[in-house]
């Protein structure tokens, strides 16, 4: 008691004390975050500027930016550039990843919205449908990738069998093997898997929309399409934007699906796949670390651009 009165008189103000208490409550989380997120990230950036390899990680020497870009003049006078930034395989992977992210997130958002609208409607057995629709998301990616791998198999796959049976194709398609269809195969599986996740996030947004607005619109005789574009869409936009960011972050670092479904295919190799390949398979740990760092930078740029362009309100200030 006395402590409290004294404090009011001379010690730190209530606000300051609350901040201090908040800091101590947050400290364990901050330490945990530092250990699992910041430290590995900083270490990767450090490794990317050394000549580390898996077998000699602790004897690594500092070589500056050579893993990113180095200029060397040969004895013949020819100038050659080396490093990730001039590596065509890297840029192919960047292109694959960006293409994959844009297409998959686009489809997932559209399908997710449709599914969410359906799940938001009142009908019998809605609870069951909501649970059932989440199944693809609940299956571990490795399992679903392997499962789809067999379904897409050219000789004994069920997809080819069905398409042949209904006469849509006249010969078996090598989905995962052919360079023309490999990316499509990856996209199909990813869209199948992640649409439920998008639907769930959008559904949460839909349920926030007050019912009375719809009632008012119905009384005024507004056309349902107009209701969707003038009422529903603007009101769920914040939720939609956040959902798209989540998916974008995920899609830009895609690894498992590609690694299992179409390993080593240049048509689908993504940034994560190529960086792992360099780190582990080729024993060029530092080079792979440089690619991981670039991947981090690319994702950071993408997200900042998105937040800036879309004016996404991540802090939730406007709702207060």
């Amino acid at each position, binding site marked *: 008691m006395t402590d409290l009165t004294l404090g009011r008189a001379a010690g730190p103000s209530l606000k300051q004390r609350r901040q201090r208490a908040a800091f101590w409550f947050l400290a364990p989380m901050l330490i945990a975050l530092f250990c699992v997120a910041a430290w590995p990230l900083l270490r990767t950036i450090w490794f990317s500027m050394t000549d580390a390899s*898996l*077998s000699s*990680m602790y004897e690594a020497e500092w070589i500056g930016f050579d893993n990113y870009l180095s200029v060397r003049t040969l004895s013949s006078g020819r100038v050659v550039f080396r490093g990730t930034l001039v590596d065509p395989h890297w840029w192919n992977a960047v292109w694959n990843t960006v293409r994959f992210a844009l297409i998959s997130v686009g489809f997932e958002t559209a399908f997710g919205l449709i599914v969410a609208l359906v799940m938001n409607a009142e009908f019998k057995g809605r609870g069951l449908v909501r649970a059932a629709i989440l199944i693809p998301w609940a299956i571990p990616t490795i399992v679903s990738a392997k499962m789809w791998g067999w379904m897409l*198999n*050219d*000789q*004994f796959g069920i997809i080819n069998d069905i398409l042949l049976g209904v006469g849509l194709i006249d010969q*078996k*398609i*090598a989905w*995962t*093997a*052919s*360079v023309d269809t490999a990316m499509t195969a990856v996209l199909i599986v990813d869209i199948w898997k992640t649409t439920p996740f998008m639907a769930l996030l959008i559904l949460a947004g839909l349920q926030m929309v007050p019912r009375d607005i719809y009632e008012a619109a119905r009384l005024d005789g507004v056309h349902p399409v107009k209701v969707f574009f003038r009422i529903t869409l603007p009101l769920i936009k914040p939720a939609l934007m956040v959902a798209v960011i989540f998916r974008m972050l995920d899609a830009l670092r895609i690894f498992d699906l590609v690694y299992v479904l*179409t*390993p*080593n*295919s*240049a048509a689908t190799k993504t940034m994560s796949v190529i960086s792992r*390949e360099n780190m*582990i*398979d*080729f*024993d*060029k740990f530092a080079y792979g670390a440089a690619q991981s760092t670039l991947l981090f930078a690319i994702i950071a740029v993408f997200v900042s651009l998105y937040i800036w362009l879309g004016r996404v309100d991540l802090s939730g200030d406007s709702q207060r």
Partner: protein
Amino acid sequence: MKIRMVKSGLSICALCVAAGMSPAGAEELFYVSGAVGNALENFRETVKPWEEATGHTVTLVPMPASSSDQFAQYRLWLAAGTTDVDLYQTDVIWAPQLADHFVDLSDAAKDLIPQHFPSVIESQTVDGKLVALPLFTDAPALYYRADLLEKYGKEVPATWEELTLTAQEIQDAERAEGAADLWGYVWQGNAYEGLTCNALEWIKSAGGGQIVEADGTISVNNDAAAQALEMAAGWIGTISPEGVLAYQEEEARGVWQTGNAVFMRNWPYAFNLSNGDDSAVKGKFDVAPLPSGGDGSAATLGGWNVAVSKYSTKQEAAISLALYLSGPEGQKSTTLKNSNLPTITALYDDPDIAEQVPFVPRWKEVFEQAVPRPSAATKGKYNEVSAKFWSAVHETLSGTGSAAENLELLELDLSDIQGSGW
């Protein structure tokens, strides 16, 4: 993680048992290996006599069938110095890359070494250190449907051209008779180590060298090699399904064993499996050396070895298991069960083997002419060289650029990797 849990569970059981009656110092070993076919069950039977004799136990930790995937995982475990795994089953090409992490077995195995083929022992010796002991050697064969060749009065193809023609003819005729799913030739075209093996055979048999020669010169960019690759690219969609570009050993065996292929290139392990009761080709096929491309038949030297991790805390028991598996008893058992090729010379004259897996004695010749992959010449950079090679081949096969263009680029890539030396 899982290993650790299983392990601690086992150690508790072992403690209870040890307190009672088991022989003093019984250890539980962990052996990691890729698993194809029936390898898991067969391993249990093979090690049973050893377990009974020593009182130790061994658990097989199965890994994916792709050797590239296994290698990545092993490299991670070894770089982290894990004590969870005591023995590794290693591919013949890995010795130079992983040598630092394994125990030198040359003293422990000094009585066993002279019984093996010297070339295999040599492939596992790095700077005088015997990194791993051979379990079996591997050289691929051409599996052919004897019944179909007989039906159409064809000889077993001796050259790739003959194979192409025969495969096409039988495929067309059989399809006309209603076998719509039949293909002429299946092999391993996925972009992985297996494609390096396949393509090395086409190129070497056509006189195009072996990618990087023993003295370190990059020889892959030449006309014979380009022609060999163009020939293989011509198979896609004609005698081989387009999906062969995603096939590894097991996918090819799947098509073959369901009776949907006239020819298959595969390793000896497929022999017993194809003769199993559930196989559609049981008793209808035979094996022959791979066709020649004008410069003799070439079969990539494969094979698996057992290495003892230097981070293992139970090295004594682990070495004893390695010696058993690599010794006459262990090798005979795996030969009979897995139809592998032994590396102990005397086993080729063993009556049981001659009776139960009759093709093994015939294989000695093929094996003696086998072509090694350039792992010794390229040392620690072999994986990257192989990946660049299989990518160039895969691109050629899937129609991205001609063989000549891709080989030219490959030569440039390889000399970049080579840098100042292998």
